[in-house]
């Protein structure tokens, strides 16, 4: 099976890959792919989005290591870092790519502007404005992808890139996530694309690279920055910038066969976020668009190899995609989604919501009751004492991120509010918006009825997965139990 190298560039890249991680955790599957290799590229390494995403992916990896089995429904897809590939030589952080010598200098220092010969200096000073030249690299490119196009090109000389190239096999795929209106992403996407297509000796596997199957999602503006004194980002410019960049893409990215599949997504700029010039303040709330963007990776993985043919670095049949939902709504529910999307995410997200809800709200309490069958029966018990404490802690951590993610998407504009992850007890089955549990069921059951039913399903099924080690059993049991509930009780 093939690997999917996902280059997540800039803040948007981090957030989309976070969404992807959430989907993968929930059980969304990637076809034709057995491993996802995320490479986060962001010179702004202290970016809040980035650190959160890295944390989430590390947690995902640990949870998967401890819970994966053939029966597992959650954390199924393998996410691995570049380091884990090939000879295992240490490159850098697991997922992050650090650009050396970027920090603590200005762009003009980065390119050695003052030492340039006069003519070249003159030419560069025409290509780059004075604010460009004076830009501080520490805080990203402040929406100046033209700077990024130079700075990020350092990536090409990095060990990461060499490692990526060396591990890139003929059937592997590349996916690039970027936003068009920021600094880093907008620059990094064409740059990585061009570097792959432009790969030459002595880059390893350069012929594979040149003809690689490459997909990309370019995120167009979907939120506005709330103006404050701390930012130089003027979101009013987002659209103008986007149009200019799209024009460039049209000629030099999408229009010239450089890419096999390009996914466009964006929204009318209505959603306001607190503005910040990068660094850890840039920790934007999760958004449905990011979820949708993450789904483009699912879609790309779904494409057959034959559909992604490349000859001499040029895609023979480049494809372009846009995303839509069935019903326009200020608050999107599962029912508003297109059918395919619904099919992909409705059940997994519901299932994982049920899983995390029980784990977060009731697991500890239930562990106090030795008669709780699914916890204490069988060889491999699922009680806290039996499970790896580290796993529980990681799960708890991941679930917290998951809830936060859902909550943020629910609060964003457009709001994505298919689930209420905070429900517990007797309302727990009402978590899916617009899909309350069966009516007769309400009549029959009293207080705590949902939880009671949930526990009985678990207990009924627990025996079936008792051959699995506790961690793996937990994954398998909840995957199947929540699937059953979602299908039968919530009627998804």
């Amino acid at each position, binding site marked *: 099976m093939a690997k999917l190298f996902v280059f997540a560039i800039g803040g948007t890249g981090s957030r989309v890959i976070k969404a992807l991680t959430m989907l993968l955790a929930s059980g969304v599957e990637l076809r034709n792919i057995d491993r996802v290799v995320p490479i986060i590229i962001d010179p702004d390494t202290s970016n809040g989005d980035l650190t959160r995403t890295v944390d989430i992916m590390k947690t995902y990896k640990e949870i998967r290591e401890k819970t994966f089995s053939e029966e597992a429904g959650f954390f199924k897809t393998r996410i691995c870092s570049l380091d884990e590939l090939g000879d295992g030589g240490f490159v850098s952080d697991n997922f992050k790519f650090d650009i050396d010598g970027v920090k603590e200098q200005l762009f003009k220092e*980065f*390119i*050695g502007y003052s*030492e*340039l010969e006069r*003519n*070249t200096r*003159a*030419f560069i*000073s*025409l*290509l*780059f404005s004075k604010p460009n030249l004076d830009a501080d690299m520490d805080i990203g490119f402040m*929406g*100046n*992808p033209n700077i*990024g*196009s*130079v700075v990020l*090109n*350092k990536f090409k000389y990095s060990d990461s890139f060499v490692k990526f190239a060396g591990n890139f096999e003929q059937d592997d795929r590349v996916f690039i996530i970027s936003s068009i209106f920021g600094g880093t992403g*907008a620059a*990094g*996407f*064409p740059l990585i694309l061009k570097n792959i297509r*432009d790969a030459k000796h002595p880059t390893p596997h350069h012929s594979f690279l040149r003809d690689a199957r490459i997909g990309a999602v370019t995120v167009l503006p*979907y939120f506005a920055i709330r103006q404050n004194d701390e930012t130089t980002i*003027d979101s*009013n*410019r987002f*659209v*103008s*910038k986007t*149009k*200019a960049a*799209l*024009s*460039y893409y*049209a000629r*030099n990215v*999408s*229009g*010239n066969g*450089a890419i096999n599949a*390009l*996914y466009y*997504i964006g929204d009318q700029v209505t959603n306001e976020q607190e503005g910040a010039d990068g660094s850890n303040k840039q920790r934007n709330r999760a958004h449905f668009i990011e979820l*949708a963007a993450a789904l483009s990776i699912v879609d790309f993985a779904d494409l057959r190899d034959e559909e992604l043919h490349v000859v001499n670095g040029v895609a023979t049949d480049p494809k*372009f995609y*846009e*995303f*839509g*939902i*069935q*019903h*326009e709504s200020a608050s999107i529910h599962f029912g508003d*989604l*297109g059918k*395919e*999307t619904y099919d992909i995410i409705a059940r997994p997200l519901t299932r994982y919501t049920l899983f995390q809800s029980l784990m977060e709200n009731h697991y500890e309490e239930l562990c106090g009751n030795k008669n709780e069958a699914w916890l204490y029966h069988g060889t491999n018990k699922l009680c806290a004492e039996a499970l790896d404490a580290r796993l529980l802690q990681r799960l708890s951590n991941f679930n917290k991120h998951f809830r936060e993610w859902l909550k943020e998407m629910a609060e964003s504009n457009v709001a994505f509010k298919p689930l209420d992850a905070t429900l517990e007890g007797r309302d727990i089955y009402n978590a899916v918006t617009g899909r309350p549990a069966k009516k007769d069921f309400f009549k029959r059951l009293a207080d705590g009825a949902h939880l009671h039913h949930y526990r009985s399903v678990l207990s009924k099924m627990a025996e079936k997965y008792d051959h699995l080690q506790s961690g793996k059993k937990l994954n398998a049991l909840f995957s199947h139990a929540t699937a059953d509930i979602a299908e039968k009780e919530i009627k998804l």
Partner: protein
Amino acid sequence: MSKIFRLHQKGGSENIEGWQAISGHLTKDHINSIADPSGSTAHTQITSIPSPFARMDLVRTAFEFVNSSKNLDAATIYHRLVSDCLDVAEIFFNIEALQDKIEVLQWSTGIRVVAGELDIDPVSDLGKLLNGSGAAKHRLLGETLKMYLFQDRSAFNFADFKHCYLLNYKQGPEIINIIGGTSPATLFFSSANDLSYVDIRFGNDKVFDDHFVPLYKRNKEFVKYLFAFRRSFPEFSVKFPDLNTYLDETYALLDRELKEAIRVMDGDANAYRLSYDLLAVVAEGNNAEILGVPLRVKNYGADAAADEHDFVIQLDPGTKVEGVVPLVLPKEAFNEPLRYAGGVWQSSYSESVPYLDDRQLADRTLPNQAHIKYPYLTVSDLLQPYLIRLPFAIDDHKFFDGNYEVRQGEKDHSYVLPLKKTYFDYFSAAGLRGRLPDGKKRIEMIQMAGGVKVILRVPIRGGRYIQLSRLYNVNQLQDSIQPANERENVGIIADNQFTLAVYPWIRVEGADFNPHYRVLLVDRDVAVATKQNNYTVSFYRESRPFEPLRPLAVKPRSSKHQSTGVTTIYYVLEQNFDLVEVVNNTASGMLVPLFEPLPMPARAFRFAIDFGTSNTHIEYKDSREDITRPFEIGEKDVQVGTLHQPGEATESHLLNPKLGFGAIALLGIIREEFMPLQINRSIQYKFPQRTVINDNGSFNPDDSNFALADFNIPFWYLKEDRGLNSEVTPNLKWSDFRNDKRLERRTKAFLKQLLLMIRNKVLLEGGDLASTEIVWFYPSSMPVFRRRFFQNSWATYYQRYFPGATHLYRMSESFAPFYHYYHKENVRPHDRPAVNIDIGGGTTDIVIYQSEDPVLLTSFRFAANSIFGDGYGSTSAANGFVQHFESKIKESLSNTKAGTLTHIYDVIKQKNSKSVELIEFFFSLEENKTIKDNRIPLSFSRMLAEGTEFKLVFIFFYAAIIYHIARLMKARGLEIPEFITFSGNGSKVIRLAGGGSDLGTLLGYTKVIFGEVFSVTAVPSMEFRLTANPKEITCKGGLECADPSRFDSLEEQILVTLPGTDGVTTVPPASLKYTDLQSEEVVSAVVGEVSAFIDLFFALNSRYNYYSYFGIDGKGFAEYKETLKSRLKSDLIDGIRQKMAEVEGNADVDITETLFFYPLVGAINRLACSIQKNNQ
């Protein structure tokens, strides 16, 4: 209703659920459909294009957006980008005019194709970046550039992108300030930086500002250029599709005329190549290109388009400008919306208009429109830094006074027009003096508290004008002149003392007219601040104001560093001039002479010139009239024009001590060295005038010399105490110019000045030069060579000054008086002959006629000078008259207000000890203005007439002449004359001999002599005619004679000489050649004859008692007789030798002068001396 997560509006009815494939990528149609509410007001530069070449791409995107918006005029960020890009293009287009601000740099990509693959030439700028030994940083930068160049080559035409040409704004804030460059995507692109510091304007638009200007609103030449560029660019629409579309959109909006021009040009594939210049970058031959097509720029050699300017000056009629007519721009408040450089003048523009632009007119670029090379005039082009203040009022009838009015104080000063000559390249003198359509004066000079404000109103198109002004401050320094500051428009008043005298003050236009001008500049800058000044005067015709006329000669004559205290420079100019430029070490100014039109030449004049030994006289008449008049220059026909207002007011101002002692010399030197304003009977400058010429004594006779430059006739001679730098030369008629070229020059100069004065009189009185007749006289005794010298001189100068005239006559001096007496005084000797005795200074001419026919002519050198002169080689120390009267006269003078006149005498005596001159001084005193004004009773002639001491001398003189005439008549068988008439200035001595107005006594004496010679006791009646002005008779006679030439042959026929060897022989019919004179036989015969006369003279005392008739005491007679006889022989030989010297080389001819008077010249001199000694 479904929702698609997209920004664009295109295909809004599609139904997309989940990720669904769309038909293609997002193209410009999609992109353009993205609503961008903030885009129209946004000012922040867009930087979202992920390429180092983002800026190039962005500009193309901007064109794309603007094209699709179908509105070239909006204010979006894209319109800004397009406008900035066009600014860059227009700067390139006008690069030649922006050299001082912009420098073009070059960056080479080194892109080339090697084996079908793109490659970078290592010696290119990019190649050096990639391969250089420089930092890794540079290699990374190079690699990145290279990758984008290669990867994006099709969209940017990078494969042919060899060079980028960069505009470096030299006056920007950084070391390098690149404001734009060439682009392979859109031809040009601009920098994203804030370029508000770029001070370049096109029309009303400042480049790179917030006012966006679409192409169709830009300079037409520029628009046309871009279309021409497109026309010549292969596959332009493929390579520059967005720009191509923009040009199409632009074309639709152009005016009909420009459309047509472009349409026509589009038919000519060579238009671009032929109409525009290559742009050489870094080195000649290294020409800029875009994708291999030469980038051409505006050819500034071609004509600028004047029709875009309302500030084009309105040339005055008659002025022509080769090439572009410049603009003049308002420096003072001006808010009329006039067209300027394709835009409209903004009131704020005035601030940028300089007072001074150091560049050549042709190299200038317009203020606020630095890209436009177009000539414009500044205040400093038209107004001088210094304003020259003169210590007198300008004669505003002769020179334009610049409309200066004295508001406060006395009218004792004026200013030279502080105009630079350039002014007259465009405007006429008449225009300058005129008014503008609104009635305002073209120039005004306004007296202010601290100086003078000069306002110049320069006409521009459409009847408007631009007012320029400069304030000239009073110089605050004592010993120097404050520097003016033209850049700040601060002028300084320079106090200078000079004046001009222009001769003649006449202007005649006409191709066949030959002007003869003399212009005198008098420089009396002697103050500490100005004494180093040297002056230059240049003359210009209005039709060629840029080229000074070449004077025939420039003659410095006096120097202020010597005793005169003034410097004089004479310009001899034989061309008409309209403008005068005066330049000294510090200041310059223009003078506009106001010549008045002359009457139409309709009259014919005849002049008679009696060029005498001592005095010269001119008479003239209108050929239609019967009256003759002496030559005069009166108040109404002044021939000299002076810069200063002539008259007593000016003279008294110049005596003001604040001007420094001696400023009056400004005027005095003009009289001394040049010409008096008037010459007439009511003043002391008049004819007859002493035959003397004045010069500085050091002129170079081998150079060209000019009357009224090197020389002048000193009308003041003997009358005024002048002559500080004058050497006055008398005896011009007889001077030895064969051996002294200086004398020849002087003599000729005298004749020339006379003819110049006559010529100008003719012109002023409406006479026709070609019809002017001139009669000149010569004494019969004048040797042939000398006569020929004068004849040639008169003929040459007559031809020169009276072109086309053919009526130059010569006439024997002898005949003219006869002619006058016969025709005008009714002396008609029908019975017995009449004798006219013409006594001049040097010669006495006798003509005897019967009826109207002259029958005998004789001439001899025994005249007034023989009495008052110094005999043969004597001096004034032995001159009886000088010795007798010198102290008396000086004493009389020194006791009066005319005491200074004694100084004149001393000067003459010092310079020229010839007694004749001293005596002439004595005679002149009674006519002297000072003497007359002070009613001083001093008259030399009265002293001589009333005193008896010297009467014997005059009687002797007279008796000798009458005796000789009588002997001659007798020898020729003529009767005793019926009339004796007198003429010639020397005939005044007749009155001295006769004792005043009553000539009866003398007549009686005359009859006695005739009776003695003719041996008759009863002498028939005889009549005398002697007028008050005997000198004029010759001229009057000459004027009467219709055909003087007929006397030429007559003279030869009737010239008879009684050699003085006996009382019978006359030549002809006898012959006596000069070569025979020195024979002892001749000498002793003459001595005997003379001796006999002396004996007779004293013997007559018994017949006609000298005491009773003349009051002469006879007690010294024996001694005087001895004196007279003492050296007869040696005096005769002196006289003969003198004559021989004169006729040298032509001595083998018969003598034409009697020898009788030769001994008497010396004798009479000794007689006076002897008398003086006896009367001490």
